């Protein structure tokens, strides 16, 4: 039971956004996808979520996602988009409830409020979603996604959180909160794939990291093995220095240490 993406190719017109990228993610782990702008991170997630037309195969818990109807996919994995716009003045709680459309948590009416509490926005339940700040809206959408796959394991199968830059519009406290939520989902047996911009948060929270550059996979492995001077400098085309102080050995990258 895992999520495999095999030899994924995506083209935008004549431009090849992904040139045959593979990725395997395991339940119980946070798998991060990093890389410079335009490297194909979000495109890879778009293929894995069946949002974009792609060549190759994506296997979710052993089944090709092309063979699964939308509602079955929705019961097994939830997707957090980069930015969310909403067309009508729904309240925050109504938005989170939309996550229950097909999820098997549908028969548990308390899940949306719990999901809102999980992201620290329970007191916002009856506000109009469109009046929220960007960061608040992002957390409400995370609550919606959590409500959709509330139990990380359902019927013996892991469920998946697929997050596209989940912390992009958040302050540092909420960045940590959201990454902690992702980690706990994984520790409880679910699977998480997150497209990340922040290499330090990636080093802190990811169990596995895929580094993409120019539509290809440059490296894939544990953060300590992948987040190295050499790999990052090649990926980002900029000399980067990674430090990994004992005892934790968790790598960190300071812009200060970069030299052109």
């Amino acid at each position, binding site marked *: 039971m895992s999520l495999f993406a095999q030899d994924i190719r995506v083209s935008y017109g004549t431009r090849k956004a992904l040139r045959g990228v593979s990725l395997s993610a395991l339940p119980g782990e946070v798998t991060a996808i990093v890389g410079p702008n335009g490297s194909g991170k979000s495109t890879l997630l778009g293929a894995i979520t069946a949002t974009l037309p792609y060549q190759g195969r994506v296997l979710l818990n052993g089944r090709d996602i092309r063979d699964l109807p939308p509602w*079955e996919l929705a019961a097994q994995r939830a997707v957090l*988009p980069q930015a969310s716009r909403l067309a009508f*003045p729904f309240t925050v709680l109504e938005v989170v409830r939309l996550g229950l459309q*097909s999820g098997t948590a549908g028969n548990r009416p308390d899940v949306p409020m719990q999901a809102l509490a999980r992201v620290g926005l*329970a*007191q916002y339940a009856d506000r109009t979603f469109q009046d929220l700040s960007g960061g608040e809206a992002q957390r409400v959408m995370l609550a919606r996604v959590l409500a959709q796959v509330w139990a990380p394991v359902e019927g013996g199968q892991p469920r998946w959180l697929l997050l596209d830059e989940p912390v992009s519009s958040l302050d540092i406290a909420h960045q940590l909160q959201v990454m902690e939520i992702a980690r706990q989902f994984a520790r409880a047996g679910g699977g998480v794939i997150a497209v990340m911009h922040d290499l330090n948060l990636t080093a802190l929270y990811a169990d596995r990291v895929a580094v993409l550059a120019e539509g290809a996979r440059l490296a894939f492995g544990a953060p300590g093995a992948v987040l190295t001077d050499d790999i990052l400098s090649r990926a980002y085309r900029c000399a980067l220095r990674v430090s990994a102080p004992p005892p934790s050995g968790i790598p960190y990258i300071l812009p200060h240490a970069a030299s052109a």
Partner: protein
Amino acid sequence: MTAIPDTATLPRDRLSRARSLHWVLAGGLALACIASLQIGATDVTLFAMLAKLAQGEPLSHMERVVLFDIRLPRLAMGVLVGAALAVSGAAMQGLFRNPLADPGIVGVGAGAGLGAILAIVLGTLLPVWMIDRIGNQMVPVAAFLGGWGSTILLYRVSTRQGQTSVATMLLAGIALGALAGALSGILVYIADDQQLRDLTFWGLGSLAGASWAKVLSAGPLILLSIGGALMLGRGLNGLALGEATAAHIGIHVQRLKSVAILAVAGATGAAVAVSGGIGFIGIVVPHLLRLASGPDHRTLLLNSALLGATLLILADVIARVVIAPAELPIGIVTAVLGAPVFLWILLRRRGLVEP
């Protein structure tokens, strides 16, 4: 972890309010129906007739004609057309993800009108056996096809990567409306006198030509379309998040869009075919309901049908009495009442429209 507030008093209330609104609006519709049968150009009234029947007296010939051949078919058509216009407005706004999308405003009504005019003017060229077979349904079906084509075209033009641009939609609607209007104009020139008379009555937007034949010709398509639209509530709620996210939460987006477009075209086309261009019901009714009980399409669509029917019947009563014994085309009444509401929506549109 923060404490979870008591949810019993939170927005769930909006849903239960919207559900009780079903009954209030149904009651209002019943009252409007009674008013519509009671009031008219002659002094025949429903209550007088009921009193007669209660005393065992038979109705006069005139009373029977007024009730059964004039007011009842007109009432039935008013209910059907009002419900059709409001539901197609609500469904189209859900499909296009913005509250300004109304079939009348964005050219779908004009496309349906073009279909109807084509059928009126060119329908006589069809072989006789075909006219015998489908004559009654020809105008509504042609209007449906015209509305269907324009809705699909409009959606194609204004939607990129699953997001609909309001500006593009409105501008495309203007172009589409102008094109359909021009083609309709050409057809008017080649129409003969009888067809011209049909077209003029029809173009004013009126229930005055109501007859049982028209009710029977438009009724099935309208009921089918409204029935189809009423099943879209959950899907349209999800679509408010955009096409990609709607798919992620388990909605079959392509099918949802197809059914919504068919329902909008069917309801608009059939309504336009029998009553011409009656505007603003489709935009005002869903908007008022969203203010009253929120944007949840599971209740909005049915409430729109009820309120749309009620408002159109009341507008028809106004149209009949305001300059009696003559009558105003109902399209004028709905425009006078509806256009200011439309402007008011534009003024307060912050938070209502996707940028």
